[in-house]
């Protein structure tokens, strides 16, 4: 007996309802959707590949020269390529992107839990069939996946350029499989950043403050990295490297920062200590690079930082406070 006048008062919901597991995906999906709409992030991503971009431009001009100027140009290109160690280029690109990765992490993650804390959003999450683990995993994935994507895209772009333009110069053999190494590097690096910012964000109830603290943490820890760099560059002041004079324990300080540990991962996985940017330096006056750290050292710091981030977040997010 349906009435011709529709009943617009409240009615129950009889539509489909999913199971109560995998709620984390709903959270992650929302986070990611929100993040990818942020155009500024894409700009930052493009900027983070600045080293690759400059290299591509240099290569492009040298190639043009080789095409237009005949053997002379060919010579110049070959000379330049001789100085280029491909895996070092990936290392450099990744290292030089670090600051922008940091900014991206900040934007992606600083507010993730902090703003929820302020708005009591946890009450909404936990009064639905979401557990604390769902919540944290969802938030973490919401930072990790976009960050991973944005770390990989410039690398992938450079690799594709290499594959298409320098296949005949031995790129495939020397660097063709490097992309497979860059993936775990980006995965580990993004996981680290995401875990740390998750922990920091959970400690505050204003995204702004969490961001400042994360930046502070980054800057302070980066002080070690910068300090070692300066020590290497300026020590003695005579332009010659005294890296051998610096005790290894102190050199390892280089890796004791958020940037440093990611560079350490990259060095471990790529298996190179790196070289001067833009193929510079050559044999003439090689500024020594900080040597590859022991993989165990790297793994320990990485694990400790990730665990710390998660542990803090786990402690700070309290399911018990849902009511009252």
């Amino acid at each position: 007996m349906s009435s011709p006048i529709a009943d617009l008062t409240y009615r129950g919901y009889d539509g489909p309802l999913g199971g109560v597991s995998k709620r984390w995906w709903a959270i992650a999906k929302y986070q990611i959707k929100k993040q990818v709409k942020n155009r500024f992030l894409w700009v930052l991503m493009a900027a983070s590949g600045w080293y690759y971009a400059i290299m591509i431009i240099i290569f492009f001009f040298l190639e043009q020269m080789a095409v237009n100027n005949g053997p002379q140009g060919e010579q110049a290109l070959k000379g330049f390529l001789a100085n280029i160690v491909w895996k070092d280029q990936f290392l450099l690109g990744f290292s030089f992107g670090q600051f922008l990765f940091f900014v991206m992490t900040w934007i992606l993650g600083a507010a993730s839990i902090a703003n929820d804390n302020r708005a009591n959003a946890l009450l909404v999450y936990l009064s639905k069939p979401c557990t604390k683990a769902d919540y944290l995993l969802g938030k973490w994935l919401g930072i990790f996946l976009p960050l991973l994507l944005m770390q990989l895209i410039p690398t992938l772009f450079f690799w594709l350029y290499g594959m298409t333009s320098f296949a005949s110069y031995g790129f495939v053999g020397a660097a063709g499989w490097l992309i497979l190494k860059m993936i775990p590097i980006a995965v580990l690096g993004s996981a680290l950043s995401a875990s740390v910012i998750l922990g920091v964000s959970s400690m505050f109830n204003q995204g702004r403050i969490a961001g400042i603290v994360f930046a502070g943490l980054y800057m302070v820890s980066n002080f070690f990295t910068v300090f070692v760099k300066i020590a290497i560059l300026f020590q003695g002041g005579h332009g010659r490297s005294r890296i051998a004079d610096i005790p290894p324990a102190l050199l390892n300080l280089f890796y004791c920062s958020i940037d440093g540990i990611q560079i350490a991962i990259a060095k471990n996985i790529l298996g190179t200590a790196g070289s001067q940017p833009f193929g510079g330096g050559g044999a003439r006056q090689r500024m020594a690079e900080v040597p590859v750290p022991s993989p165990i050292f790297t793994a320990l710091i990485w694990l400790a930082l990730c665990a710390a981030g998660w542990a803090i977040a786990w402690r700070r997010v309290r399911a018990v406070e849902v009511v009252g």
Partner: protein
Amino acid sequence: MAVAEIRGLTVQYGRFTALSDFSVDIPEGCVGLLGPNGAGKTTLIKTILGFVKPATGGGHVLGADILREGPLIRQRVGLMPEQDCHIPGMSAVAFVAYAGELAGMPGNHALRRSHEVLEYCGLGEARYRLVETYSTGMKQRIKLAQALIHGPKLLLLDEPTNGLDPRGREEMLELIRSVSHGKNVNVIVSSHLLPDIERTCDQVIVVAQGKLRAQGLIKDLRKVEGAPIDVELKEENPKFMQALQERGVTLLSAHRNIYRVQGKGLPSDVGKIVFDAATAVGTQVRGYDLAQRSLEEAFLEVIR
């Protein structure tokens, strides 16, 4: 058929016992949950949501076990928390839809129903606005909307009128009444404002010191022994008492301009005497009814 049955539940936080050997059957319909602060009300709500790890005892909510099936319970129950809460940076409609997705609704269903529920909660025109910009009254409404989105069979409302002004309170109570009556939604309202409970609920559960103190219809709780009558005068009038006593009506108590009297015979007979007495002393009767305790009086007596 009870909405929730709890059997022999003891919950302890450290040395503090929040609930001790607590058993209750929460009936269908709209039930008021009363109790002073620290009485175990909050713990009971947590129990119904499947959040507590009791020392002993157990129970079922909507057929799901409170010890093992917490998430399942929370999919069937909607909670409107006491504190302000929202998810920052979202418009109302996105927020409520997201809450639906969190409860397991597919995205498109959630969005459709989000519009419907917001419309119903009186936020139809403000649904595209950011929740942060909402006023207190609107924030209460959106909390209700996010609790209703997944069509729960049981709705828990924790202080739903907190911070609302008289107009907002009335609208909120009207909303609660309309969901709880004839829509097949069971409601548990916890509130310190007893008149709100009086207006929305048929039954109450009174909890104090971790124990169930009373349970039953509000009507029964408010009954007064011996059926006396309350007479309200326009103004206080001491002569009125005397006039009553002369006519054989005993005065039980007087509070400002309200007099509780006990006479013999039917209410209408007593009424005649009262009118007569009032006319004799030249005062005006403004109200005349079978005495009822306010729910507040009843409550204070039960928990004492």
